[in-house]
């Protein structure tokens, strides 16, 4: 029956709960992933917005530079040679100007008239380009193709410049462009214009100044746990914002290329997907709540199951108990009825036999009384209504009296009773009837189970403000497996209706309760010579509780 309940429990509760737990876990993970994604998306959006601003700003700057360059195309060479360096010298965003003659000879920086260290560095930097070993138009790589759309802006400005100036000279700009140039790890931007007469001129952008202006337009803060960084082609950090310091090891949320305006430069948002700590806390909280829900379902189910199991056991115990009690009651009643019938029908002819019949009837009714007393006491104790009337007793006298009263039964069972210490006064303070009932239960048990031992030894002693009555038999003793539950109600070592000895499993339980309620105890110890030893303990004097 228990197995069925358990399997039902597993089927109806455990499996759905587990399924629910799994679903909840999946949902939570999914939610966390969604939140992380949303954080990454927000970070990417912010980075994209900044990247757009940078692109727009750089495009605007480039358009303006190109406009100013193309506007100068119609100028005579000498004027161009005067204007370009002057322009480069006053504009903080222009590092250097250059002018190449028709035959690609470098007119500016002017090597014939002395060079500054900056001039030399410039010429060295663009040596390959000026020597014609590198094309002015960057090769059509992917970035360049992407660049072409933005570069339309430039050609538009070129066209508008043509219109505006009207070009009364022949020197129309035939080509112009922006050239990203790498010297070591550093990016340089070169704007150039080629005229129809082959003269080529342009400027180099002051990248440091451009960068200095770009970074001041960065947002001053990034979401918690995130950093936004501008990286160059070598992934060196040019600038970073955010409470968290940007580190290459941080998980990257978004990488946005700044090509074509600033080829190979990237804007990287890194960190833990937005307000990670807050979100982590939320996730943890949800996980804990789910776990609590699942645990309470499982725990509640388990408690219900245990309860049901206990109920089943209790019901069975009661059934056994009722059967035992009925059996117990029936035996003396049958005996009494039989002897009463014999007497009534006058079958007992002689006086001696009648007297014996009557004794049997009296004995059996005493047994019945004891049984019913036990039942009543059990009821009272269970309901907490048992009232005690303690008084000062001499346990030796009491024990002698009770044993004398039971002498016939004990002898009939074949037990030889020996008493020790009953003659010396042993004071105790207890309810007389309760003590008697407890001792009787022990004696009954001895009669029932230890008659084979032939001997019963009682010893009354006093020690440490307590009176002890030890009852030892030489019977088979209590099997070790049952010792722990010896005093449990309804427990019987042989708990079957077909048990050799009748009983309802109340005696020892009741006795212990009775003694304990008065400040004493009932203990069991296996006797050294085999057999069982029960010790009844009672307080020597009234206890102030």
């Amino acid at each position, binding site marked *: 029956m228990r197995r069925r309940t358990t399997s039902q429990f597993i089927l109806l509760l455990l499996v759905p709960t587990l399924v629910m737990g799994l679903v909840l876990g999946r949902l939570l993970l999914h939610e966390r992933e969604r939140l992380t994604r949303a954080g990454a998306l927000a970070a990417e959006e912010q980075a994209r917005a900044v990247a757009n601003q940078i692109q727009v700003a750089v495009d605007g700057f480039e358009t303006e530079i190109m406009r100013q360059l193309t506007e100068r195309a119609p100028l005579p060479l000498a004027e161009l040679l005067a204007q370009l360096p002057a322009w480069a010298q006053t504009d903080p965003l222009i590092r250097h100007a250059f002018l190449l003659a028709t035959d690609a000879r470098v007119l500016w920086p002017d090597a014939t*008239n*002395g060079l500054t260290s900056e001039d030399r560095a410039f010429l060295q930097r663009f040596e390959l380009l000026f020597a014609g070993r590198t094309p002015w138009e960057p090769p059509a790589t992917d970035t360049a193709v992407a660049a072409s759309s933005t570069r339309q802006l430039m050609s538009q400005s070129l066209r508008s410049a043509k219109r505006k100036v009207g070009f009364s000279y022949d020197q129309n700009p035939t080509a112009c462009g922006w050239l990203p140039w790498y010297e070591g790890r550093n990016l340089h931007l070169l704007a150039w214009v080629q005229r129809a007469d082959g003269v080529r001129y342009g400027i180099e952008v*002051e990248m440091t100044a451009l960068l200095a202006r770009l970074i*001041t337009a960065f947002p*001053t803060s990034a979401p918690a746990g995130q950093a936004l960084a501008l990286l160059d082609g070598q992934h060196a950090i040019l600038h970073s914002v955010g409470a968290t310091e940007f580190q290459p090891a941080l998980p990257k949320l978004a990488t946005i290329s700044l090509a074509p305006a600033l080829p190979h430069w990237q804007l990287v948002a890194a960190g833990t997907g937005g307000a990670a700590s807050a979100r982590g806390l939320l996730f943890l909280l949800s996980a804990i709540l789910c776990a609590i829900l699942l645990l309470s379902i499982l725990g509640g189910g388990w408690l219900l199951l245990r309860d049901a199991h206990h109920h089943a056991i209790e019901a069975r115990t009661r059934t056994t108990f009722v059967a035992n009690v009925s059996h117990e009651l029936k035996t003396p009643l049958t005996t009494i009825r039989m002897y009463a019938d014999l007497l009534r029908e006058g079958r007992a002819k002689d006086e001696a036999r009648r007297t014996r019949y009557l004794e049997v009837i009296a004995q059996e009714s005493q047994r019945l009384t004891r049984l019913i007393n036990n039942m009543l006491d059990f009821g009272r104790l269970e309901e907490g209504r048992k009232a005690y009337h303690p008084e000062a007793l001499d346990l030796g006298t009491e024990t002698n009296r009770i044993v004398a009263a039971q002498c016939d039964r004990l002898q009939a069972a074949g037990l030889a009773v020996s008493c020790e210490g009953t003659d010396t006064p042993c004071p105790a303070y207890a309810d007389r009837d309760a003590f008697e009932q407890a001792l009787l239960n022990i004696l009954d048990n001895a009669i029932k189970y230890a008659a084979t031992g032939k001997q019963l030894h009682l010893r009354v002693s006093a020690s440490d403000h307590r009176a002890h009555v030890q009852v030892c038999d030489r019977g088979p003793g209590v099997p070790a497996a049952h010792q722990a539950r010896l005093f449990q109600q309804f427990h019987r070592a042989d708990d079957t209706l077909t048990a050799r000895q009748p009983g309802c499993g109340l005696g020892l339980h009741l006795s212990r309760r009775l003694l304990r309620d008065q400040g004493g105890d009932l203990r069991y110890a296996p006797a050294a010579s085999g057999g069982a030893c029960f010790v009844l303990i009672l307080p020597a004097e009234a206890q102030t509780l």
Partner: protein
Amino acid sequence: MKLSLRTCLGALLLVAASGCTAPARAATDRVTCTIELDRNLLAAEAVQRTVMKVALRASAVTTTDERPPVNLVVVLDRSGSMGGDKIERAKEAAMEALHRLGPKDLFSLVLYDHEVETVVPPQSASNVEWIEGRIRKIQSRGNTALFAGVSQGAAEMRKNLENRKYVPRILLLSDGQANVGPSAPEDLGRLGAALMKEGVAVTTVGVGTDYNEDLMTRLSQNSDGNAYFAANSAELPRIFNAELGGVLKVVARQVVLEITCTSGVKPLRIIGREGRIHGNTVEITLNQLYGGQEKYALIEVEVPAASANEERKIAVASCRYADAITQDDGKASTHATVRFSRDEKAVSGSFNAMVQRDIAFNTAAIANEAAISLNDAGKNALAAVHLREESERLRKVAKDYKLPEVEQQADELNAKAKVLSSRALHAEERKSMRTDSYQSRNQQQEK
């Protein structure tokens, strides 16, 4: 925010790209220009080399209310290494600087660690209480994004740059290596050069022995600002005071000095300063001139042979500047004539001791810098040899022209040579050497 950011950025770049145009109106002579040669007589009938000293002297400001207002941006390193006494002294110094400014001046404060924060946006220096409250709250933390700090300082500066009445000055204080963003001396040097074009001078104050003096002096040098080395944070208030004293006396800005050599005279090199030699003209740009102070350029020229007793005009110097007080454009010009003689004794006796002294100081500074480069390359013994040679040369100059200051300089070089012959320079020695040589090349008065 996006929109404002974009327009702001766009505007920034456009303004810069279109360059500056200045009204052309004559002004009173705020700046006078003089040319002196290292000797008054030149040997006749010989091609020879001589050094011209072209000096610019700004007249002293007499009354205090005449002084042009200052736009001062203090850029303060608050990285973790500034903790303790350094940051406290720096705060003290910043407050002292604030106290020296008047109600017409602008003050702003930018802090940087691994990120940058404008703690005090540009505003009148009369808001003393509020600004002081902001300064007191500063605490040290984080890393060193020096480039971004200066960039932000420049951005705060730019808000009032259109108004030409302000004397713009960025005061950068750092005790560490720049380790976030561009951090090579060249990068900061380029930034300084770009700021120079906008008329902004960056004064750098290095504290302690950990900062990168090359980076700091390059930034100062390229923007024509001052450079200071404070080995001890206790010197900070004094340095800020000295710097402010100079800034408050600025009388001319964006000074362009052009020297045209005539009669076949050929400029060979500029001693101690950066400038451009183009044919027979030399162009040198200075950012700001202080009242009562002299700044000069030394130009070595080759003079063609001339007959005895001939007097020749060998150079014309003209100088353009913006008058910081009236905001007008100013001009000054002068020319140099020289007489030739056959009398060798007279020629050698006609030396100009002051010019010789200035030349000696500049060559000593150049020798110092060469020694630093050699020291960095691990060739300290070679550096010692060079310094010793220079020391001997200076000693001779001192003896010939009776210049005790040069003698002292020679002794100093000799002492450094002694140190270098046995070991490489310590951080502090290198810093003081680098800063000193820049200061003498820049003719910085407050040190």
